[in-house]
């Protein structure tokens, strides 16, 4: 279904797909962002489908990370950032004054490029978000921790050493621990910013497998530099360049029959 952009028509409207509001988890409309005087995002409008994996690709510095950070309001602390436009999560504006940022961040979890477990035990890392919320019995919390570690495909590797330091894990395990930590607080959306770019191929494979499993109950947004990875795990792919959305479509079409020359050039350049 073609999407009618009411603010500024794309040069080729057919290069951007749209989803019905009911089927989408996040709706971004007219989003622009600048760091001081330097624009980083230019008038983005797109919807992200629920319980699917949506990949963002594009050259380095095109604003992919910046976009993800808007989605869980990590820019709030940077007073240089100037933002216009709106982002809706399940129909509600995430920047509305009545929104509790902490609550929003629990609903929209984020995993960063470099694994960043806290300097605590494995158990305490996963318990971190739960403890912040409080109100859970220790039994309940331990159950959730086990569930989160299982969901992140880490339980079998760490169940005998939950009290060991998280920093004693390998890089791939650390990244899965970070995912488990995020899952434990029960997000609806999981933002992954190049989650495997610092990992070895086997760990990468495990993360990709994990992403495939998680989409049964989560909306996933994946930023990646790796075209094969985007092709392997995502359902939809959006191509960004210079902070603007160039093309957005089902992953297989975008990779095999990109509509725009720019997209094709980028993909073939990266694939080669």
């Amino acid at each position, binding site marked *: 279904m073609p999407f009618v952009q009411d603010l500024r028509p794309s040069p080729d409207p057919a290069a951007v797909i749209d989803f019905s509001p009911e089927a989408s988890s996040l709706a971004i409309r007219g989003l622009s962002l600048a760091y001081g005087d330097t624009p980083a995002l230019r008038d983005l409008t797109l919807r992200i489908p629920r319980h699917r994996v949506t990949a963002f690709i594009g050259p380095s510095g095109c604003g992919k990370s910046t976009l993800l950070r808007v989605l*869980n309001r*990590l820019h709030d*602390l940077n*007073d240089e950032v100037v933002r216009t436009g709106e982002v809706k999560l399940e129909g509600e504006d995430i920047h509305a004054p009545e929104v509790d940022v*902490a*609550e929003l*961040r*629990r609903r929209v*979890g*984020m995993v*960063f490029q*470099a694994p*960043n*477990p*806290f*300097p*605590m*035990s494995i158990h305490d890392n996963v318990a*971190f*978000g739960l403890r*912040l*919320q409080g109100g859970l019995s220790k039994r309940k919390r331990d159950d959730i921790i086990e569930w989160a570690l299982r969901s992140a495909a880490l339980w079998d590797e760490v169940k005998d050493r939950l009290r*060991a*330091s*998280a*920093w*004693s894990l390998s890089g791939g395990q650390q990244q899965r621990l*970070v995912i488990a*930590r*995020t899952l434990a*607080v029960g997000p609806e959306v999981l933002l992954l910013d190049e989650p495997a770019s610092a990992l070895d191929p086997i760990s990468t494979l495990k993360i990709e497998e994990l992403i495939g499993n998680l989409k049964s109950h989560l909306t996933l947004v994946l930023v990646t530099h790796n075209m094969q990875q985007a092709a392997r795990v995502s359902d939809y792919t959006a191509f960004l360049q210079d902070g603007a959305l160039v093309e957005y479509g089902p992953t297989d079409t975008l990779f095999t029959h990109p509509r725009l020359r720019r997209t094709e050039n980028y993909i073939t350049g990266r694939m080669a």
Partner: protein
Amino acid sequence: MRPVSGSRARLPRGEGPGAWLAAGSVALSLLALLALLSLLAVRGLEHFWPAPVALVVLEDGRQLAGERVREVPLPEGTGRERLYRTGNRDLYGTRWEWVAVSAIAEVSHPPDLVVLERRRWGEAIGRLTALESETGERVEGEGAWPALEARLAELTSLRQARDALRDEVILPRVRALEEGGDVDRELATANARLRALQAAMEGGRLTLATADGGRLAVPLEQVLRVRRPNAMSPFDKLVAWGEGVWRFLSEGPRAANTAGGVWPAIFGTVLMVMLMSILVTPFGVLAAIYLNEVAHQGRLTRLVRIAVRNLAGVPSIVYGVFGLGVFVYGIGGTLDEWFFDAALPSPTFGTGGLLWASLTLALLTLPVVIVATEEGLARIPDQQREGALALGATRLEMLSRVVLPMATPAMLTGVILAVARAAGEVAPLMLVGVAKLAPQVPVDGDFPFLHLDRKFMHLGYHIFDAAFHGGDVQAAMPLVYATALLLVLVILVLNLTAIFLRHHLSTRHGALTRR
């Protein structure tokens, strides 16, 4: 033509003149440190070893007895001169005697020479001739020494009994009496017992014959210790040495800080440094958090940061003046007007004391803690902060649960540096509360137990005072060395404690500092 590549590139590590120069400087610095410590250790610790007492017969027939201290050449090759510590200041007016080596006819070490340590007049040296008990019995000649030893042991136990009676029986009852209890009779019997004990302790005395034929009568209560160094075996001397070191560490000073121990000064130094750490840590950490985590990183913050760094270089006496003006006179004076009106004009907080000294030193070391903590905070990757925020932590939760624990080792490094600096400071303390003599330590059983308004003793100041202000500098010198050694050791122990703490905290979750 390519320039000859620097010799660095071709030279393997650890060769060439540069490496030798560097290694040489390291060795030299270490040697200098080692020399310093060994000087302190040797000069400080040999003092407690019982020195042999020489009986010197001079050419002119005069005799003197004393411990040989040192020997120096006389000017223009006219021979050498020896210094003896002869004691008996009450007889001669001095405790020292210089003797030309050429004037000495004979030196011997008779085993029956006695060294007495007395409460007043320093030591006495001579031969024991008679012991007189309180009832007037006299023991003379050979039997006097064993009788003296027995009597002194008896006196020690009597003294202990008296102290126990006073502390455990009389003082509690006096307190009860003040609170209106009916203990008059018990008190009266206890006081009678005390008087009896006191009487049993008084009266005895001994007589010494000095080397030059004089006579010295010493009441037994004046006697602290007696020994015959020439008759002691090496093992006896070792025991005496251990006892001497222990007394130095555990007793208060005597004779205007030129004798006795330094316990109140050790206690004062450690307590003051601890209070200082408790005061400086929260302020320093909060300031560092503000500068690094809260403040907008603009020009003003940079300026403040530079200012803080420079504050670390302000001479310490300046802080002392500030402490005196602001803490002692300003805040202390006001406190006195408000709360201790009854005691005026004698000041309570309006004079130097433990609290003001700790505060002044806390101010002095604040920059050190701020800088170290800030460096620790700056080393924490932003991803850790974002990770916490992304899990729904507020800024405060992020700081307290992730950032601060990670910065703890750096914080403790700051405290270690602060302790090292504060423990050795003397100049500002002289303005804000250190005392020449405060035998009562500022902690006791009376409410509020920790007396922040009291003056206190400090090892650094004790060194200064004993070395320059005692009546007999010659006598105080070994104690000055010993105290200096002790100050170094106390700082070492304080630092090791903090380092141990840091290590313990950082190993709890693995390689926190190594990443």
